[in-house]
């Protein structure tokens, strides 16, 4: 094999031991890497019914066949585990130099199990794996942790992935950060790392990565690099993803004040256009990325003067309009604190917005908030609440559990505005004015997610009535999900997706040129379907029920009150109809289960064996783990 090492490093923190396991060419070509390979290893290594924060739950880091090669934007890795937020499959991507280091150290994947007797960090020096004491790192953010470990090692080439204080305190949506500013952000992978008393993973990877056809790969990649500088990526390069704010606002799709509105009167003031004009300091990129979508903003005056912070659309929406905040410096400060504590910005914003609505409706009072005025639009409240969540202080302790658990605990009807699917807080697209995306959020295998079910693209297509639900959306959502699964397993950044003329033909060729493994367009396409069936198989084993594929009550009861989509709402019948069509398009049963024949058709016979030990759904629902 080329590019792949065929090796998986398994670390047991309980016994402080390591071993190497072989990954066969057949397994690697079936799941590619990233989310696909990571989920396959999770299914194998996670005992059925394991608590997400128990030592039994494995934390899987998966590289890919393209990582470490010259393929643009392929310096990525996936983190896969059983999510403490959803109790189902949790997967998240991150990128840049740590991803390269993992591959160069000689591993296609790393599985961490058990729990260390006291806080440690791992230092992986190619073949040699050290477990080192980490008490002195506790309480540090990712940047400080990275600096400290590099200083100890006396080597700036050491790359570090770590958790912040939020992960140490098991905030259920804690993330794992690497290279200071990159995060595997969603589904709470950082809480799983914290439950293992593992503060960081430092890697010094020095091995070369060989590819099967260097000249051929170079030719194709040169062309891709050129295409990455055309109009297909212009928005990402010039404005970055904050350029989405005004577009979604215009379409009544910008979730505002906890989805009470879908357009924000302060949108212009926090738009990508305004940020570029008044705050932009620098544009940067992940390793091997020619697009450079990361925009660094600087606050010039006021209490946060001097603050520099990167911001993407999802962080901006969640800490801005979703909380009714129109102060750019406050949003940047809140994002900086999320990075320091190592907590997901989308879930953090979602939880604070939920609490603000509880405050508005009198379910939470100043007594509960230690005197804090938790009104929508209060920038100081936003910043204070991020800190309290990161420290699990006061009501922050409740919010650290995520909206699903927090609303179940607080009750009082607050479930109505707990905006999540399967426990994962929804991202910045209002499903009432984007009905294909509504389906995607409802059936999403890691919970409501625009990256795993990117069906907003369907809603933003000519000839599609985004305000209408139709059975045909089932197949369209399936195709979007399968395409996303291929990108997330190869791994290629989604911002490159429009740079291909014929994605499956070109990407399968890239894969073969890098790995030497024969792969055609049809085979690559089937990987996407295989990966999503694998994720569903894991979910079924861990207690998924049909009731989990649904949306919060607000989406059915509260029409959008103003803007282009005034009056838009989703009916239960519409969503049920689209879900039925989706199950049918996937070849699943009417109740959303996978027939054995489907697994066999996808060459997943071995998964049948791994499905044994399926749990009784009643044991794990609704608050799994």
């Amino acid at each position, binding site marked *: 094999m080329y590019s792949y090492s065929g090796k998986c490093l398994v670390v047991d923190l309980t016994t402080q031991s390591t071993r190497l396991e072989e990954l066969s060419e057949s397994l690697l070509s079936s799941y590619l890497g990233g989310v696909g390979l990571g989920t396959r290893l999770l299914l194998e290594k996670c005992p059925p019914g394991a608590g997400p924060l128990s030592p039994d739950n494995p934390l899987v880091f998966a590289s890919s066949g393209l990582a470490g090669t010259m393929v643009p934007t392929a310096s990525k890795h996936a983190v896969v585990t059983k999510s403490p937020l959803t109790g189902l499959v949790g997967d998240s991507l991150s990128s840049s130099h740590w991803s390269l280091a993992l591959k160069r150290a000689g591993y296609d994947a790393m599985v961490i199990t058990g729990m260390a007797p006291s806080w440690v960090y791992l230092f992986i020096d190619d073949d040699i794996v050290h477990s080192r004491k980490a008490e002195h790192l506790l309480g540090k953010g990712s940047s400080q942790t990275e600096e400290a470990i590099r200083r100890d090692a006396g080597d700036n080439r050491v790359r570090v992935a770590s958790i912040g204080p939020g992960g140490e305190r098991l905030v259920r949506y804690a993330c794992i950060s690497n290279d200071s500013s990159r995060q595997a952000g969603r589904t709470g992978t950082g809480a799983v790392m914290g439950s293992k008393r593992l503060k960081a993973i430092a890697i010094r990877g020095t091995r070369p990565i060989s590819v099967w056809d260097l000249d051929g790969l170079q030719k194709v990649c040169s062309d891709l690099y050129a295409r990455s500088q*055309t*109009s*297909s*990526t*212009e*928005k*990402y390069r*010039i*404005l*970055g*993803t904050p*350029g*989405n704010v*005004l*577009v*979604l606002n*215009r*379409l009544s799709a910008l979730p505002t004040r906890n989805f009470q509105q879908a357009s924000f009167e302060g949108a212009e003031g926090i738009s*990508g*256009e305004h940020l*570029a004009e008044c705050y932009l300091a620098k544009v940067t990129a992940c390793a091997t990325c020619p697009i450079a*979508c990361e925009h660094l903003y600087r606050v010039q005056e006021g209490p946060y003067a001097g603050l520099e912070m990167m911001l*993407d*659309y*999802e962080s901006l929406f969640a800490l801005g309009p979703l909380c009714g905040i129109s102060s750019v410096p406050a949003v940047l400060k809140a994002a900086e604190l999320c990075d320091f504590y190592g907590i997901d910005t989308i879930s953090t914003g979602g939880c604070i917005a939920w609490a603000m609505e509880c405050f508005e409706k009198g379910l939470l009072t100043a007594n509960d908030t230690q005197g804090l005025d938790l009104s929508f639009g209060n920038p100081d409240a936003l910043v204070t609440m991020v800190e309290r969540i990161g420290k699990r202080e006061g009501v922050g302790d409740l919010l650290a559990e995520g909206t699903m658990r927090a609303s179940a605990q607080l009750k009082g009807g607050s479930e109505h505005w707990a905006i999540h699917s399967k426990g994962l807080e929804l991202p910045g697209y209002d499903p009432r004015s984007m009905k294909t995306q509504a389906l995607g959020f409802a059936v999403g295998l890691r919970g409501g997610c*625009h*990256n795993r079910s*990117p069906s*907003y*693209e369907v809603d*933003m*297509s*000519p*000839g*599609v*009535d*985004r305000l209408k639900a139709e059975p045909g959306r089932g197949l369209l959502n399936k195709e979007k999900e399968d395409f996303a699964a291929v990108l997330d397993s190869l791994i290629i950044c*989604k*911002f490159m997706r*429009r740079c291909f003329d014929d994605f499956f033909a070109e990407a399968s060729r890239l894969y073969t040129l890098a790995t030497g493994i024969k792969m055609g367009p049809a085979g690559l396409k089937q990987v996407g379907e295989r990966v999503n069936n694998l994720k569903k198989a894991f979910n079924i084993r861990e207690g998924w029920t049909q009731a989990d594929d649904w949306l919060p009550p607000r989406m059915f009861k509260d029409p959008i009150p103003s803007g*282009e989509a005034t009056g838009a709402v989703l009916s239960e019948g519409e969503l049920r109809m689209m879900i039925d069509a989706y199950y049918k398009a996937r070849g699943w049963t009417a109740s959303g289960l996978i027939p054995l024949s489907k697994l066999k058709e996808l060459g997943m016979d071995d998964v049948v064996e791994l499905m044994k030990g399926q749990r009784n759904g009643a044991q794990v629902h609704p608050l799994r783990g």
Partner: protein
Amino acid sequence: MECTVELFGTLRQLMKTSEVKLKLPPGASLKDLVAALVEREAGLLEGVVDPKTLALSVPYRLYQEGRGFVDDLGRKVERGDRFVLMSVAVGG
């Protein structure tokens, strides 16, 4: 007849305005509307509008208020129609 085109993102930067009012002859089509935009800003031909067909390049799209995303350049434009020219390269 007059119609309006709202601009967002890089298009707003390119045309140095957030909104353009266009005067078109009766019976004008979407293609005429795009041509009028190009006449006002030739820079649109660099990556936004195909110089030969006047079709919008990926990922730019026209949204017509009250009707949705439109791509049929033969579609007739009515007096008072309001359009949004945007990039749908979202995500992130």
